[in-house]
């Protein structure tokens, strides 16, 4: 209650789930030993899947070829083929058509070819499988001063490093940073809210890699050509605030960049872009427009850190810190894993699951996806794996809506989840477009969290969206 009054936050809606961050908040990041096998999805992000072949030009290095190669009609050659030997950090997938991100080998070993892997969200989708070769050692990266580099080079390095937004959606970072000249931005917000319960990977990054985060922020500011940056952090992470503050205070170029920390009240979904913009700057994004229309860009703190890695170390994004937590795992941890590592490897390393395990969630408990198998690989956007027991989740059957209005109070976007639920249950989901879920709902799950009847409102909303789209398609066809 005290926290609520003291710190700024978004005014509308929001819920207060128990944080459960104590399990892992104070555990330093540890390394996962190289898994035997990794599985790298060609589509790890918003946009098009990456390609495993590059334009065939012998006289050029692959990097340069990629920079130039948007010309259709070239002869393509496979970037890697079966049985190829790769080192961690080698590019194995390209981004040469539209929105997308490059893909890199995450361990040293042999390419086994392209096979179907089990994606936590999209079900079966194509992936490159690499088996580990213990004889090969990963590349070493050297520090390089980025101040002198031109803007385009910074962007290229970010693009070639295959960085996507690590806040959840996975929007390719270079595309987001390459704003068109018509748009004027004035503020960068680094999102360190990490409002999802259990998850602590961003928190650990802020504690352990404060310098990289701040430097990353500067790189982004430089690319955008602006000076103001706020780092929004929920007030329940004093260590992170402290270590970042220290770095900010110590920096030498305070005049060039104005970076400051905003402590925010603890409230879910503080970490959503719209909400953190409102919490930090008080601005509100108009419906149907990007946040850039109000002069703000939001980047995750972890994205800033990877951008630093890409620009300063020239290190591609092929491994990330995830939080493994919940009562269902023997030893909760913050753990650095190569992308593509399977859940089973991680579970084995952390001493296995407890017998009362009921649900495995990839991502946070509010917006993550439940998986039915341990044979699921980590993707670039996986921020955590939760092993939840029966007393942590709710398995009650849902009852009828009693119109208590709790969900309306909880919805940060001012929607009416109860109505959508009732309409979908009555088989009229296609008529729910006026409730605004197509534009505004980002499925934060606050409504379902508070619902006393335990109604699966997010599921109803997804169904409604599908039905609305189908109805629209039908309409177009009739025309």
């Amino acid at each position, binding site marked *: 209650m005290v926290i609520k009054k003291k710190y700024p936050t978004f005014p509308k809606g929001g819920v207060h789930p128990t944080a459960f961050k104590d399990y892992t908040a104070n555990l330093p990041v540890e390394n996962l030993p190289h898994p035997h096998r990794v599985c790298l999805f060609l589509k790890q992000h918003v946009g098009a899947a990456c390609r495993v072949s590059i334009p065939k030009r012998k006289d050029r290095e692959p990097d340069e070829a990629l920079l130039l190669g948007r010309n259709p009609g070239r002869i393509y050659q496979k970037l890697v083929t079966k049985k190829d030997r790769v080192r961690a950090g080698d590019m194995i997938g390209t981004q040469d058509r539209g929105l997308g991100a490059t893909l890199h080998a995450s361990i040293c070993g042999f390419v086994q070819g392209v096979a179907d892997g089990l994606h936590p969200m999209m079900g079966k989708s194509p992936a490159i499988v690499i088996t580990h070769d213990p004889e090969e050692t990963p590349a070493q990266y050297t520090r390089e001063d980025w101040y002198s580099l031109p803007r385009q080079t910074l962007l290229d390095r970010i693009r070639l490093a295959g960085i996507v937004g690590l806040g959840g959606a996975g929007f390719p970072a270079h595309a987001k940073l390459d704003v068109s000249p018509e748009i004027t931005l004035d503020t960068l917000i680094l999102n360190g809210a990490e409002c999802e319960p259990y998850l602590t990977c961003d928190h650990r990054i802020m504690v352990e890699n404060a310098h990289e985060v701040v430097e990353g922020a500067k790189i982004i500011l430089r690319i955008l050509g602006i000076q103001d940056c706020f780092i929004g952090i929920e007030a329940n992470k004093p260590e992170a605030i402290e270590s970042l503050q220290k770095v900010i205070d110590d920096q030498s170029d305070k005049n060039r960049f104005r970076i400051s920390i905003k402590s925010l009240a603890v409230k879910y979904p503080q970490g959503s872009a719209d909400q953190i913009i409102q919490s930090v700057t008080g601005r509100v994004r108009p419906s149907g427009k990007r946040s850039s229309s109000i002069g703000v860009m939001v980047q995750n703190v972890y994205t800033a850190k990877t951008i630093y890695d890409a620009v300063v170390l020239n290190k591609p994004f092929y491994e990330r810190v995830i939080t493994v937590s919940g009562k269902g795992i023997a030893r909760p941890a913050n753990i650095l894993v190569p992308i593509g590592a399977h859940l089973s490897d991680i579970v084995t390393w952390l001493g296995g699951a407890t017998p009362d395990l009921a649900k495995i969630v990839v991502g946070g408990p509010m917006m993550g996806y439940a998986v039915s198998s341990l044979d699921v690989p980590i993707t670039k956007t996986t921020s955590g794996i939760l092993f939840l027991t029966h007393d942590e989740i709710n398995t009650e059957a849902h009852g009828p809506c009693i119109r208590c209005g709790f969900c309306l109070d909880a919805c940060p976007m001012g929607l009416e989840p109860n109505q959508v639920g009732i309409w979908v249950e009555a088989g009229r989901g296609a008529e729910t477009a006026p409730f*605004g879920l197509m534009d505004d709902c980002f499925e934060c799950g606050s409504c379902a969290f508070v619902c006393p009847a335990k109604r699966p409102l997010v599921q109803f909303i997804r169904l409604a969206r599908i039905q609305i789209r189908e109805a629209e398609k039908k309409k177009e066809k009739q025309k």
Partner: protein
Amino acid sequence: MTQTDLIVSVSPHIRQTVTTEAIMWTVVASLMPPLILSVHIFGFQTLIITLVSVAACVATEAISQRLLGRPIRIRDGSAVITGLLLAYVIPPGAPFWMPITGAIMSIFVTKILMGGLGFNIFNPALIGRAFLVATYPVAMTTAWLIPIRDAAIFTHMGRNVDAISAATPLYVLKHEGMAALIDKFGPLKTIYRDFFIGLQPGCIGETSALLILMGGIYLIYKHYITWHIPVSVIASIALLTWIFGGDALFTGNPVLAILSGGVMLGAFFMATDYVTSPIQKNGKLIFGFGIGALTVLIRLKGGYPEGICYAILLMNPLTPTLDQWLKPKRFSEGAK
């Protein structure tokens, strides 16, 4: 561990602990103090009436859900609340079997037929009461008992129901005037005190403003109901009675108006029923004002001394419209 044991469902994977059942049973609990007082001042038969009413409601719900092949949801406590509220608006001297037909009307006709919990248009308990008033008009309007002030609980179990009866304060006020009220119930100061504590003739659960207020404030504190409806109902009744209730304008007695009759019970426990009241805060205020206005109108100009039961019933069907008109403010509406 086999992989088929894992539960797969859509996010969110954690839930708040508050459930429909928890809310309903909390309401039941906060409805208990008036019942205890009622047994204390009116005698043991009020408990019997209440038990019969609750049992009839629960049984009706179970039987009708069984017959219609629906899942039986008597454990959610909504039928218990309906039973309690129905008993609370029955005079204490009424025969014990009277709530049974009212319960069938409340639960089967008003709730189950309309699609069960969450879809009823009217407040079930109040429809039950309106039905009972129409069916047993004599018992429902004359079976009042004088509260026994200094008797200990359980000592007057064998009380002769027919022997002692009294008119309710509102009846006296409407038909005989203020002087008669003071003549019967003592000076105004005593009246205020007695009525606030609950020592007045009235329906089983509506006499004590104090105890109902306690229960209601507990519900507000638990965030199960909001202050909007109770406050707007009570404020509008007080205001309109003050303006129009006296011999000339602005001479009415607002305190008496809100302490007597079912105002408190109606405002805190009946009008706030989730299903039959608007979901938006501004809608709740309009709803509450409407109830207050209609209550005063029926009290002053209508055929009944008490009006809040019908006032709530008359406002209930406006709920879908208010919900449709008053939408929550969308996030982006705050954009400049």
